[in-house]
């Protein structure tokens, strides 16, 4: 005679517990994303998804592969450290397909955006009160944007 009377109850209980555990593991495997926990308590695949977003700013290296003439003018001037897209705007589409022409720029807006006189700007940064400085004459009459010092030349 068995030591445990009516031990069948225990086996049924154990079986129920096992089924419950398996069901839990099954549901968990279904709902938890595959890469969750790959690097930590998050979905590892999210990193590659975020890294795959499209770019809009091509980067000045991309510009310089074709526009070497402009780079030549720029590099000795005051705007040598100003990247192309700082003024020209995001042009990754143009870099991918040069037939897509970038919009024409308006120096009346662009120059004063940085160079309008303001006491809030660093003192050593070149600033002008546009009205006193040029009396309405467009900036590019005297200054070439790619190398703005007067007489520095540059066709573009």
């Amino acid at each position, binding site marked *: 005679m068995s030591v445990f009377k009516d031990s069948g109850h225990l086996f049924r209980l154990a079986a129920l517990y096992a089924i419950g555990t398996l069901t839990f593991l099954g549901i968990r495997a279904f709902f938890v994303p595959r890469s969750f926990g790959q*690097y930590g308590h998050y979905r590892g695949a999210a*990193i590659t998804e975020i890294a795959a977003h499209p*770019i*809009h700013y091509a980067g000045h290296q991309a510009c310089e592969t074709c526009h070497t003439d402009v780079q030549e003018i720029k590099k000795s001037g005051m705007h040598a450290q100003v990247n192309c897209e700082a003024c020209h705007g995001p042009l990754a589409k143009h870099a991918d397909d040069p037939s897509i022409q970038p919009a024409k720029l308006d120096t009346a807006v662009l120059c004063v955006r940085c160079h309008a006189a303001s*006491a809030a700007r660093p003192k050593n940064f070149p600033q002008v009160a546009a009205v006193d400085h040029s009396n309405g004459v467009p900036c590019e009459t005297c200054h070439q944007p790619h190398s703005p010092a007067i007489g520095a030349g540059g066709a573009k």
Partner: protein
Amino acid sequence: MNISRRQMLILLPAAAVAWESVLAGTPESSPNYKMTDHWWSMLIDISKCIGCGNCVRACQSENDVPDGFFRTWVERYHVTDWHLENPEVISPDGGKEGFPAVKEDDNGKYFFVPKLCNQCADSPCTQVCPVGATFISPDGVVLIDQTYCLGCAYCVQACPYGCRYIHPQKKVADKCTLCYHRITKGLTTACCEACPTGARQLADLKNPKDPIHEFLRTHNVQILKPQMATGAKVFYNDLDGSVR
């Protein structure tokens, strides 16, 4: 085929384990970029910022940031000597369209402070996320898994720097990714690319050749809210004590 109950009980878990490895697939491989080789940060030089708003515009077009929300923005501080603790701070439309004229004959000082996600190494925002939707990537960028985010906004409240918002259309948390899609391709961030004065510099703390190491040694560099112990990785040069 005749399988006994015993064999079946052994086979079932084995099959489950096999199926699991099939579903997991092969791990992603990106030969050109190793996450463990980088620890991204940013350097902001207050003495070079002219408040043109180029970074704000660049960020909005690079990352399709909705109008009225900002992943980066520029604040203009006005500090007078009798109000050192209470500076007047303005940021009209994030500084996107410039700033109003300064007051004439005022003895206060003015300066610009660009703000963005500080990419904290011990970030409060990732700690409060109840579902693991926001995290610090192995290369030190705080990112959001927007397919996993519930939009509960705990992280928006937790960020001491106010860098997060709930995207009005997607209804999930959104913030600066340090242009993760660009820096993993070898480009700099959109804001750094568009900054005309070099006031912003992307920096890789794990790269011994990065000029940031020399800069940090030789300049008076601070982070924002050091008392919060967030391990912020956006370093400010020439930062005024009134900046919060």
